[in-house]
């Protein structure tokens, strides 16, 4: 990632006030290495200050001051660090005897400051290497020893327009044009062109019949009934009958074809979304709630389909129909047609007003609804707590007040749209009544309509207003659809960060070593949760990972499993960069026993052979025996055919874990990753699990996040982690002698009565 543009001195991006100063420095023979403008002065006022680093000194300048505010000669700087406080932070440098606060900045700059600091580090390092190589060595070692982390996760912004992104989206609403959304939605119709054409034709036939029915009724009235022509009556009635039958038939067929088309489209969409979800990286899934993703696969795709198939087609047909009906009406009577159109401008203004306001009303109701489901999501799963503190009445009361305000808001929203409906009705009925009056008068006075023409005209009014009404609600439908489209396309457009590399190097085993090279990782540009991990593990070793929570143990494991790609540095497996290895071949070598084992809604048998569905029952039993799971499984009446999830509530944590160990055993991985459960497991269970693990880790490369000392007993070497970095790496006895935090950890656990670690000879 090259984001250097924010810090390297570039004339076009440097604020004007700084340029003169920089030029001045250059003229005085002090070339500027880089500069950085902050948004705050050292007193915390929002006045700019800038750090300028030349080859001799680091100085801080401000626009209204000639002299530098602060300066530190470069050779005196031992180390630069960023200190994060609430809402703001400082850039400090440590000299031989003191800390100098160089810059103060608001939290909005945290990301760029982090980069700037790295740049500064690199600069300092390069200067040092050049001036005195010995010191350089020392500093490389101690670099970053102290460094604090930024508070919380940063809000993400759109890379195109810089607007804040919603926490669950990767795509900026503003950057998504309506037309692009439309054309993409319609693209899903492409494979079904023929079907689309058929439904369109059928709909047109229906519209045509609808339009000609009033025309026929005119003949019926004028020529047959009033003209007393029985033969004509027979013909007209027969034609009408046939037409109406035809319309019914067409409607049925059209419905059938449309349904098939709609289901095809939604099937494609759902499949696309789901398979993309499966391929998306863990990073994406970490950000999303399960409920939201389920909604995207289920309801958003349906919403889109409804729009692409239903609304768009209806729109095209409506336009055609409106043109035809209007043409006929104009031919019949221009005056009356104009009279009908007269309320329409008012009507469209009304629609606009309605749309501007209905959202406000509806949003209130939705918010109440969200509050209601939030309350339910809190109190129903937490019912035990509610009862334990006997707060049932309070929960009921809270629910009552939320629920009743939802009711009020909803009634208000419905009332609002009822008003709109009323206005629409009145406006259209006014037109109709006018036609009745003027048309009727023309008929009586003669020279105007015949009776048949009048009724034909009235028949067309209904046909004209129906499309107009649909146009009015079109924007609403479009908005719904584009919201769904955003969500769906957000999934589809999110890049698969961890690339599967189907053409990459195919790993068939791990023969030699796994090397972590300067591995650094941060989630989404936030603070680094893993820093500069540099170590090598030999194939076949068992590596214990210990350290306080939040020290980066799990992140290290996740990178090793390649759920994420490192922000910097790499993992080399037998000399191949993991990022370039064919992912599937690597994962084949890998088995993970997670801290919270996941069991699928299937039998224990299928759960154990999830990684190798072709395995026979005997292999499964063997794996279960290795994992010390067989005996308890056989105690279930349905044994291996027990449903793991339904039994789930009765399966203890230890039993679940042993099933997962069996799953790993069956896969017979080359590389085994264990996140040992911290949850309290009784001693007997712990022994069984421990024993199972002992068997499992033989003859493979194993990484274990260890919480129990007994696990460490089996480790060849131990990684001690603290504050996102590796504090030490070595055998138990090495760490005991040279790593104080490790010794303290071991002693603390021993005091609690755990058995002390013995080095196994």
């Amino acid at each position, binding site marked *: 990632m090259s984001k250097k543009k924010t810090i390297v001195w570039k004339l076009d991006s440097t604020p004007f006030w700084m340029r003169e100063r920089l030029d001045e420095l250059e003229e005085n023979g002090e070339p500027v290495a880089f500069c950085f403008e902050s948004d705050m002065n050292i007193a915390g006022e929002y006045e700019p200050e800038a750090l300028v680093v030349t080859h001799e000194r680091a100085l801080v300048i401000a626009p209204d001051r000639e002299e530098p505010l602060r300066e530190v000669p470069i050779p005196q700087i031992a180390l630069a660090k960023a200190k994060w406080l609430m809402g703001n932070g400082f850039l400090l440098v440590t000299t031989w005897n003191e800390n100098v606060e160089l810059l103060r900045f608001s939290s909005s700059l945290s990301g760029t400051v982090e980069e700037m600091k790295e740049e500064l580090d690199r600069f300092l390092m390069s200067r040092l290497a050049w001036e005195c190589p010995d010191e350089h060595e020392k500093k490389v070692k101690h670099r970053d020893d102290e460094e604090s982390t930024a508070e919380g996760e940063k809000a993400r912004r759109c890379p195109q327009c810089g607007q804040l992104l919603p926490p669950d989206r990767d795509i900026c609403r503003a950057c998504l044009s309506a037309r692009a959304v439309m054309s993409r939605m319609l693209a899903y119709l492409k494979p079904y062109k023929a079907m689309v054409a058929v439904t369109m034709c059928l709909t047109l036939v229906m519209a045509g019949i609808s339009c000609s029915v009033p025309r026929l009724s005119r003949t019926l009235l004028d020529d047959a009934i009033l003209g007393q022509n029985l033969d004509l009556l027979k013909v007209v009635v027969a034609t009408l009958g046939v037409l109406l039958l035809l319309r019914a038939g067409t409607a049925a067929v059209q419905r059938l074809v449309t349904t098939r088309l709609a289901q095809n489209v939604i099937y494609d969409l759902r499949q696309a979304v789901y398979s993309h979800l499966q391929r998306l990286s863990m990073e994406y899934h970490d950000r999303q709630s399960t409920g939201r993703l389920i909604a995207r696969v289920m309801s958003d795709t349906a919403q889109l389909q409804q729009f692409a198939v239903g609304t768009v087609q209806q729109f095209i047909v409506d336009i055609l129909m409106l043109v035809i009906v209007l043409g006929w009406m104009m031919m019949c009577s221009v005056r009356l047609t104009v009279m009908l159109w007269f309320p329409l401008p008012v009507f469209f203004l009304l629609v606009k007003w309605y749309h501007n306001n209905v959202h406000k009303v509806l949003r209130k109701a939705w918010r109440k609804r969200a509050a209601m489901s939030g309350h339910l999501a809190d109190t129903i799963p937490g019912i035990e707590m509610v009862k334990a503190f006997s707060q049932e009445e309070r929960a009921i009361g809270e629910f009552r007040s939320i629920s009743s305000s939802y009711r009020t808001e909803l009634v208000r929203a419905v009332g609002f749209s009822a008003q709109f409906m009323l206005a629409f009705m009145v406006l259209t009925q006014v037109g109709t009544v006018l036609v009745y009056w003027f048309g009727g008068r023309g008929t009586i006075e003669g020279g105007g309509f015949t009776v048949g023409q009048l009724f034909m005209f009235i028949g067309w009014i209904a046909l004209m207003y129906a499309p107009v009404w649909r146009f009015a609600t079109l924007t609403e439908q479009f908005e719904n659809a584009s919201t769904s489209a955003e969500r769906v396309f957000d999934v589809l457009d999110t890049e698969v960060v961890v690339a599967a590399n189907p053409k990459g190097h195919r790993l068939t085993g791990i023969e030699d070593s796994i090397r972590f090279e300067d591995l650094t990782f941060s989630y989404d540009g936030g603070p680094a949760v893993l820093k500069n991990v540099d170590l090598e593990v030999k194939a076949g070793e*068992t590596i214990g990972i210990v350290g306080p929570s939040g020290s980066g143990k799990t992140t290290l494991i996740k990178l090793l499993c390649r759920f994420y790609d490192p922000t910097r540095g790499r993992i080399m497996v037998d000399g191949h960069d993991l990022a370039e290895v064919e992912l599937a071949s690597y994962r084949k070598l890998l088995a993970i026993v997670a801290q919270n084992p996941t069991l699928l809604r*299937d*039998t224990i*048998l*299928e759960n154990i052979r999830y990684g190798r569905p072709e395995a026979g*029952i*005997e292999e499964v*039993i*063997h794996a279960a*025996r290795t994992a010390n799971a*067989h*005996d308890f499984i*056989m*105690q279930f*009446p*349905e*044994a*291996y*055919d027990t*449903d793991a999830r*339904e039994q789930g509530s009765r399966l203890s944590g230890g039993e679940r874990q042993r099933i997962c160990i069996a799953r790993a055993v069956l896969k017979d991985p080359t590389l085994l990753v264990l996140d040992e459960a911290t949850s309290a497991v009784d001693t007997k269970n712990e022994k069984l699990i421990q024993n199972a693990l002992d*068997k499992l880790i*033989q*003859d493979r490369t194993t990484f274990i996040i260890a919480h129990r000392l007994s696990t460490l007993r*089996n480790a*060849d070497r131990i990684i001690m982690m603290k504050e996102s970095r590796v504090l030490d790496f070595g055998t138990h006895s090495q760490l005991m002698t040279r790593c104080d935090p490790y010794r303290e950890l071991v002693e603390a656990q021993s005091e609690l009565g755990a058995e002390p670690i013995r080095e*196994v000879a």
Partner: protein
Amino acid sequence: MRPKRETPGMSEEYYIAPEDLTVFHDESNNLNVRVKGRGEWAKVVVRLACPYSDPEHFVGLLHDGEQIGMIRDLSDLAEDSRALLKQALIKRYHIPEVARILSVRETSNAAVWTVETDKGRREFMVRDRHNFRRIKGRDLIIVDVDGNRFRVRRGAPLDRESQKLLDLHA
């Protein structure tokens, strides 16, 4: 360095060789087994590893909650032993096979099925989809609200009427 232990040949120890096994009833009509070279157990309990998905193989023998061992395939055993074990298994696993579904009556919270099984006609009640267990690639097991099991074989197709009822309600 930690010594790497050999994986014990526990698999072979656990499976009882068919020629080593003798099954018999003692005078109190308890099931006894004798395994050559290992010993003799009374009041033996039989358990299937996969009562639904593979009822013919992997029979576990237990004594007092402890595993004695497992038999891979019943058909490898001597005639007498096999008959005795089969008999014990039939007692333990009562899963009649549904031959015909006569009717399914849906009520508000349950469905009453009337079926013809190989053990005769039976009426039973099921509540929801949890009562139906589809065994991968094999049969459908119905567990009624009282815990009775019924097997609908996939291999032998039902008559049309039964199949219709099954598709509709299962």
